[in-house]
């Protein structure tokens, strides 16, 4: 635990006056799957490029596998597999040729490279007929798999995937993420994946970091995140009734008089009530007594989506306040 495989210290990148990444501190341990979450343009890709030594940081240091990524990128690239968000291949070569080319660039001897390439393709689930197909004819999902094969052929210690699930259909995403998880567990790989798809990240990551406007707002596993965020927060109940309520709702005052209820908002057939404790039964009883025809009662539970939304909202508000 004390020896992180990726260690970022005060990493900053400016493009002119624009700060793409601002004083990022992060450490990731060996064997962990870390999810870097953030909206588009949050600086995820820039951070990854700095870790790979493909972009020079304006300030700060990035240590990957014990090497300084800025001064010694070649050593880092030997040990780290990186899959960019838009994977492209040489279209005039077959998938196997593409893979063998990358293998050779990583110093795999020529007589071994073919065997290794076939092995890796099998590992990522590329079928027999796909191997000798030109990559121009590949579907997006197959390209992602081939991209993963390319990352794995060098037998890396760390793999960095930039938006690996972009543009694949839902079932493909699930399969792909399970594959990553399986490989990580089997080989003890450290995985860093960036995404703006929360559900997907939720499925596989041990730890996530939420990254907005170049700053890491919060990091930790999903449970701690939601606890920390919502400990003094409210419960929310959504009630749907059959008839529209008129505005202003005549019973609003009375609902507010119930114990623990903090806020009521009514709109159309929906009434949202937030309270500091779980008072759903009281609320339902109130509605029944008032002879509303209740169609549904929904208690909200918090997932990563809400955590994410929460952080974005508070960040937005901060900006407006400024």
């Amino acid at each position, binding site marked *: 635990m004390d020896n992180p495989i990726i260690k970022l210290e005060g990493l900053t990148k400016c493009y002119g006056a624009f700060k793409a990444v601002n004083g990022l501190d992060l450490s990731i341990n060996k064997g962990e799957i870390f999810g870097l979450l953030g909206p588009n343009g949050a600086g995820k890709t820039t951070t990854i490029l700095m870790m790979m030594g*493909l*972009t020079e940081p304006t300030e700060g240091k990035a240590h990957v596998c014990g090497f300084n990524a800025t001064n010694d990128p070649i050593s880092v690239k030997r040990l780290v597999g990186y899959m960019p968000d838009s994977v*492209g291949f040489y279209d005039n070569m077959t998938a196997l040729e593409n893979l063998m080319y990358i293998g050779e660039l990583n110093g795999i*001897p020529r007589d071994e490279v073919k065997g290794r390439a076939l092995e890796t393709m099998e590992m990522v689930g590329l079928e027999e007929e796909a191997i000798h197909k030109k990559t121009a004819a590949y579907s997006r999902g197959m390209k992602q798999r081939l991209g993963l094969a390319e990352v794995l052929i*060098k037998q890396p210690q760390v793999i960095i995937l930039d938006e690996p699930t972009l543009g694949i259909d839902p079932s493909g995403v699930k399969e792909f993420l399970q594959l990553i998880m399986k490989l990580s567990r089997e080989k003890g790989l450290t995985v860093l994946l960036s995404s703006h798809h929360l559900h997907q990240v939720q499925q596989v990551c041990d730890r996530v970091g939420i990254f907005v406007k170049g700053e890491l707002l919060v990091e930790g596993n999903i449970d701690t995140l939601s606890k920390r965020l919502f400990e003094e927060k409210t419960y929310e109940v959504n009630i749907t009734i059959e008839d529209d309520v008129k505005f202003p709702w005549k019973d609003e005052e009375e609902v507010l008089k119930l114990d623990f209820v903090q806020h009521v908002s009514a709109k159309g057939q929906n009434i949202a009530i937030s309270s500091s404790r779980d008072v759903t039964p009281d609320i339902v009883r109130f509605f029944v007594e008032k002879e509303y025809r209740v169609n549904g009662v929904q208690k909200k539970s918090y997932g990563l989506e809400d955590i994410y939304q929460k952080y974005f909202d508070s960040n937005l508000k901060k900006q407006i306040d400024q």
Partner: protein
Amino acid sequence: MKAFMNSLEWSSFLTVEGQPKPFWILVRKEIAGHIRSWRFVILLVLIVLTFWGATSVAMGNLREVVAKTKDVDKLFVYLKMLTTTAGTLPPFHVFLNFLGPLLGISLGFDAINSEQQNGTLTRIMAQPVYRDNLLLSKFVSSLILVGALLFSLSLLMIGGGMVITGVLIEIEEVLRIMSFIILCTIYVGFWLGLSILLSIVFKQASTSALTTIGVWLFFTVFYQIVINIAAKTFAPAANEVSQMEMLHFNELILNLLRLAPSQLYTDATTTLLMPSVRSLGPVTMEQMAGAIPSPLPFRESLMIVWPQLCGLIAATLMCFALSYYLFMRREIRT
């Protein structure tokens, strides 16, 4: 053969720890890619046809040319094969004056930007390969290709010539033809360097191709016209100035024209392939007096074209250095 390959791998230039260096893997892939591409096949056909056409015309007229008693170059049969024309087709080296740039441009115009567009650039850069190796491999692989193409063409010509005429080639001719090929390769290299440079500058392959073709057209067509118009405007009237001043003026015009790479190429090839060419500028009567009308030795011809050769190499290197500078500082993300 295996032993030979192993002995090759001894040299640390090509390998590191028994493995080929990443640079040579890049070069091999580039060459393979070019050879398989349609555009190279088309250019190859074009050049081979031109070569065949020009040489066969020359072959047909060879008898008359060699029989001319006044011509001091008549003994260089193989050089004659490269330079003789019957008026229907220009000789091969003149053809190459505009086919060469086309070859260079077509091999280099999408070198970097197509990789960037396809998303392969980031992928290659994420491998343990130095960034400059990629650029250098693009340049070197195309030059190897062009060099090999021209070299084999001229060897074919020499072989065919031997079979047809039965005249043994002289060492002087071999040297001249080899240096002609090297010169052509450097000339193509200049256009290659320029097109690679523009492929870094412009994100779209079509923009960089058009721009390079624009530069080429400017130098082949418009540059001469502009210089000639300027010369006419600024030329002193013939009877107002001394002969020396007139000479200087001519020299100046010629030097201005030599800023165009095609002019350098023409100067250099003419001198190399026609041993009787003694000077590239105007020569006074005093200088000509006492000169024996005989072909120059190879060394002397080389001395004459040395500045041209240096100019071409310098221009090529400048393009390459500039593209190097731009590429190393470039953000590679698309």
